């Protein structure tokens, strides 16, 4: 009896919570199909009274959204590829190879996790500008190519892999690179999947750096374009904005829903975002 009561109460609370968290997203999606006038109507409507795809059409007519989409994808893919390669290499070295300076290196990389983004931001901008890389893919990608978080994640995972496996391959005469490429990396697939998803996501959603480094229209990423065309401006095309927000969220949402197990495992095991 008390169990049933407790269960009902729990469900009530959880469903209310879900409405508060997911409701705004549903409202955004529904509103993106409303015509401009209905979006501004007072009182607001919940369900669209006149369905329209016009807002999405404007993304192409008024703005170059495919271009921004491509920029976001290119930057995120490069950043992800870099992190997967560099972090697994160093993670392997830190977990399985013995070399002088190993401990110090690990501590320095870990210590970087404590550094606020703002500390890096100004000198990174000075550096990238002086290298002549402002407003280029290189400028957008390079500062994010080798992050400390990935090293931490890969090292923790690699510590669990038995040394015997690696030793056996070495005894069989495999070089260290071959051991890494043929034995270690395939075993790391779960960790690589987690790191890949988290890195891709962080890069896709990255806002401040591209906002500052991408200075011309053709180098904007999706979030930058959306922000520059909306936030802080008085003349807002609400419909355009909502459709743009849907386009920013949807790819991530799909990836997230398909691969959510990896997300959860990655966050739970490393305890980091």
């Amino acid at each position, binding site marked *: 009896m008390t169990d049933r009561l407790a269960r009902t109460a729990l469900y009530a609370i959880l469903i209310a919570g879900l409405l508060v968290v997911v409701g705004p997203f549903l409202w955004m999606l529904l509103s993106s199909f409303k015509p401009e006038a209905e979006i*501004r109507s007072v009182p607001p409507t919940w369900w669209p009274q006149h369905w329209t795809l016009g807002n999405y059409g404007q993304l192409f007519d008024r703005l170059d959204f495919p271009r921004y989409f491509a920029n976001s994808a290119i930057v995120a893919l490069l950043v992800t590829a870099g992190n997967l390669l560099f972090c697994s290499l160093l993670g392997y070295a830190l977990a399985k190879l013995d070399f002088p300076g190993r401990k110090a290196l690990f501590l320095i990389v870990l210590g970087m996790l404590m550094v*606020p983004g703002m500390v890096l931001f100004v000198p990174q901008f000075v550096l990238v500008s002086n290298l002549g890389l402002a407003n280029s893919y290189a400028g957008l990608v390079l500062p994010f190519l*080798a992050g400390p978080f990935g090293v931490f994640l890969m090292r923790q995972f690699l510590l669990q892999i038995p040394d015997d496996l690696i030793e056996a391959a070495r005894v069989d005469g495999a070089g260290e690179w071959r051991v890494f490429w043929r034995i270690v990396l395939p075993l790391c697939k779960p960790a690589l999947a987690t790191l890949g998803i988290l890195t891709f996501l962080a890069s896709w959603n990255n806002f401040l750096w591209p906002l500052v480094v991408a200075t011309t229209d053709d180098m904007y990423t999706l979030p930058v374009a959306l922000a520059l065309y909306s936030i802080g401006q008085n003349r807002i095309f609400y419909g355009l904005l909502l459709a743009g*927000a849907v386009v920013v969220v949807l790819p991530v949402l799909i990836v997230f829903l398909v691969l959510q197990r990896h997300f959860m495992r990655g966050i739970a095991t490393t305890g980091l975002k």
Partner: protein
Amino acid sequence: MATATEVRETRAPTPTPAARSSRRRRRALTGWAFAAPFVAVFGVFLLLPVVASLVMSFTDMRSTDLRTPWAVEFAGLDNYARLLSDELLAKAAANTAIFVLFGVPLTMLVALAAANALNSGLIRLRAVFRVGFYLPVVTSIVAIAVIWRFLLDPEAGLVDDLLGLIGVDGPHWLGDPSTALGSIVVIAAWRNFGSLMVIFLAALQGIPQHLYEAATLDGAGRWQQFRHVTLPLLRPALLFGAVITGIGYLQLFEEPLVMTQGGPLQSTLSVSYHVYNQFGFGNYGYASAVSYVLFVAVVALSVVQFRLLGSRDD
């Protein structure tokens, strides 16, 4: 953290001849060869900037010096002296303190409640709730700003519309200095609690069931079980959550940037935002000094939290 690294290389002076030392050298070379690609990028684009930031904080560097950073002159402690009389920074620091003091407990409480509810054996469809609560964590801050600026719109917004149903006349949430900061704290908690929830949920699932059975035999009710079994065993996860969330809110920047631009009347200006503004004004040296003070605050907060919440056996 300290598991396999404990196996330190043996530096004992060994009588074994050249063969051994060459093997050791080769081992060192292999290790550094694997580390080199990361270290190169990391060194240039992360480590160098951290050091450069410290150096810049003692200079009068401005954006006009961008192409000639070597021509910049040292300013000694000028920037740090300026910090003390910067009224905007004081305002930003006070706002940031509020972000931390209210945002961290709020986010932790919601995350803990959600994790506990989901961990209860009474609930089915756990994955649906878990994924739903996690949704804002994976969403671009710009999209979140779009959503909430609409929801909180004083005329066409749903929040005031809903409040109107119960006869409450909602304020202009983001446009009024007395409500803007609170709104941002709540939105930040809304956005972030999901990732903490996942961590807490994992920790809860690691608690052995027999402890609860024993507590039930001893006559402990639900609340007593939570108080005397769950909370103590959750302590490391809670500590970790508090540190991570504290560091996050101490650096809070994107929410005010995209939702209020630090306004109205600087009511949502944060320290990070102040750095960004100073960067925008071209005051690179001063911006670096402020960012370094923030760095010190981040380290200090973590140390304090570990002292307060940590225990010897953690």
